């Protein structure tokens, strides 16, 4: 079976890229795993988050902000084409600090980012307790202050995934399930990918298989140093609208559930799926918003983020296998705008743009010493 492009992996990263490629007029086939596929997408917290992303890594801050700027159009086109609402909202977002020490660190981080990007373009500002309270009256007594960024928002990762699949299908794309890519070999001008469900051919290949990219990369001369980082999320029963905007660890979904996650910037923060971790997340959420103590947890998720050694994405075209691209990152919701509407056009053209040079896997090729 032949297409213009094969996307290996049907999670948020693969689906957003595939949808974007289909928008560029390519005939796209997504090769996905089965139902029990390890899906980081299902464990995504649902933030479209800009503040504090890319401290010390300006290109990531810019790429993230670009995605947040593209999100409203992505959301609108998905809604128009599929009728599926992703519950995307952009009311801005709050990051809370629960101690003076946290507050000082936060202030320093915001100052650093303003120095690099300029306050206007970065847009996060430091708030004291009174200012936070004015925006979010539900906060608990332990909140000493926080930061607000108008570029932040949130969406339902699950409906986003569904909308991307639906949108892809409506643009003539296909998703083949139970078709985990096994090998990638040269085939004439292009490549052939073998799976349990048959062999698929295309001139463009996108590796978007999450942690599976590590093994697939070896097939095409890409050495991808990625590792899992576990994260956990709690979801409560539905409640009345209580939170007017998302915060970095607590948000209210379109259905009314409260989601509680761990901090997205805590790179290196490993959690296992245990009751004790659930209890820690619950206790922290109650300190931020005391009203949640009376809600019931109905679900919890543990998911593995895809982490590179420095925590930033890897976007790379294979040198030995031109036309094969690899996308490796966490934050599949935040970056969906960029993946669909900025990355996909580059892949369609056959070359990654200059703005992605900083995300090459070659940055980890340390000289031997």
């Amino acid at each position, binding site marked *: 079976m032949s297409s213009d492009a094969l996307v290996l992996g049907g999670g948020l990263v693969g689906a957003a890229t595939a949808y974007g490629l289909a928008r560029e007029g390519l005939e796209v086939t997504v090769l996905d795993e089965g139902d029990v596929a390890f899906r980081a997408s299902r464990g995504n917290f649902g933030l479209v988050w800009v503040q504090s992303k890319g401290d010390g890594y300006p290109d990531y801050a810019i790429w993230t902000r670009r995605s947040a700027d593209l999100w409203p159009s992505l959301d609108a086109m998905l809604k128009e084409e599929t009728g599926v609402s992703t519950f995307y909202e952009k009311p801005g977002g709050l990051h809370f600090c629960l101690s003076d020490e946290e507050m000082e660190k936060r202030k320093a981080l915001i100052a650093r980012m303003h120095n690099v990007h300029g306050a206007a373009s970065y847009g996060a500002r430091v708030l004291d307790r009174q200012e936070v309270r004015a925006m979010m009256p539900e906060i608990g007594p332990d909140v000493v202050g926080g930061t607000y960024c108008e570029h932040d928002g949130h969406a339902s990762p699950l409906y986003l995934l569904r909308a991307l699949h639906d949108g892809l299908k409506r643009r003539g794309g296909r998703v083949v399930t139970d078709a985990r890519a096994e090998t990638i070999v040269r085939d004439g001008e292009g490549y052939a990918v073998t799976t349990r469900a048959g062999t698929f051919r295309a001139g463009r290949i996108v590796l978007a298989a999450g942690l599976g990219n590590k093994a697939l990369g070896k097939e095409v001369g890409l050495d991808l140093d990625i590792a899992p980082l576990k994260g956990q999320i709690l979801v409560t*029963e539905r409640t009345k609208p209580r939170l007017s905007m998302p915060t970095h660890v607590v948000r209210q979904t379109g*259905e009314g559930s409260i989601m509680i996650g761990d901090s997205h910037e805590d790179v290196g923060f490993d959690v296992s799926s245990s009751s004790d971790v659930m209890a820690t997340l619950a206790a922290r959420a109650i300190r931020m918003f005391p009203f949640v103590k009376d809600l*019931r947890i109905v679900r919890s998720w543990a998911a593995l983020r895809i982490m590179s050694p420095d925590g930033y994405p890897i976007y790379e075209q294979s040198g030995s296998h031109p036309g094969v691209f690899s996308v490796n990152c966490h934050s599949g919701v935040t970056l969906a705008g960029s993946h669909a509407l900025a990355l996909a056009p580059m892949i369609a053209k056959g070359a990654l743009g200059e703005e992605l040079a900083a995300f090459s896997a070659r940055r980890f090729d340390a000289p031997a010493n």
Partner: protein
Amino acid sequence: MPQRIDGSGETIRFTFEGREIAARAGETLAAALIAAGETTTRASVVSGAPRGPYCMMGVCFECLVEIDGVPNRQACMIVAEPGMSVNRQKADEVAA
């Protein structure tokens, strides 16, 4: 109407939507409500459609009620106590 086969013996009184309901000691709220002809305990959070006790064994979560102001409690798993103020779980109180 439902009937009790073994006469009276309802010694507990609680209210449901303001109406006084009689229950036996040790009996669940859902059983007492059904005996009193009250089969609708909540409104669906999705459509607002009326729902009532279905499984009576804690599995289906259809009998959710508000007890003394606390929502989402399973009437079939909670033993009736004197003076409880029980109300139907309203959709707009829990849903966005």
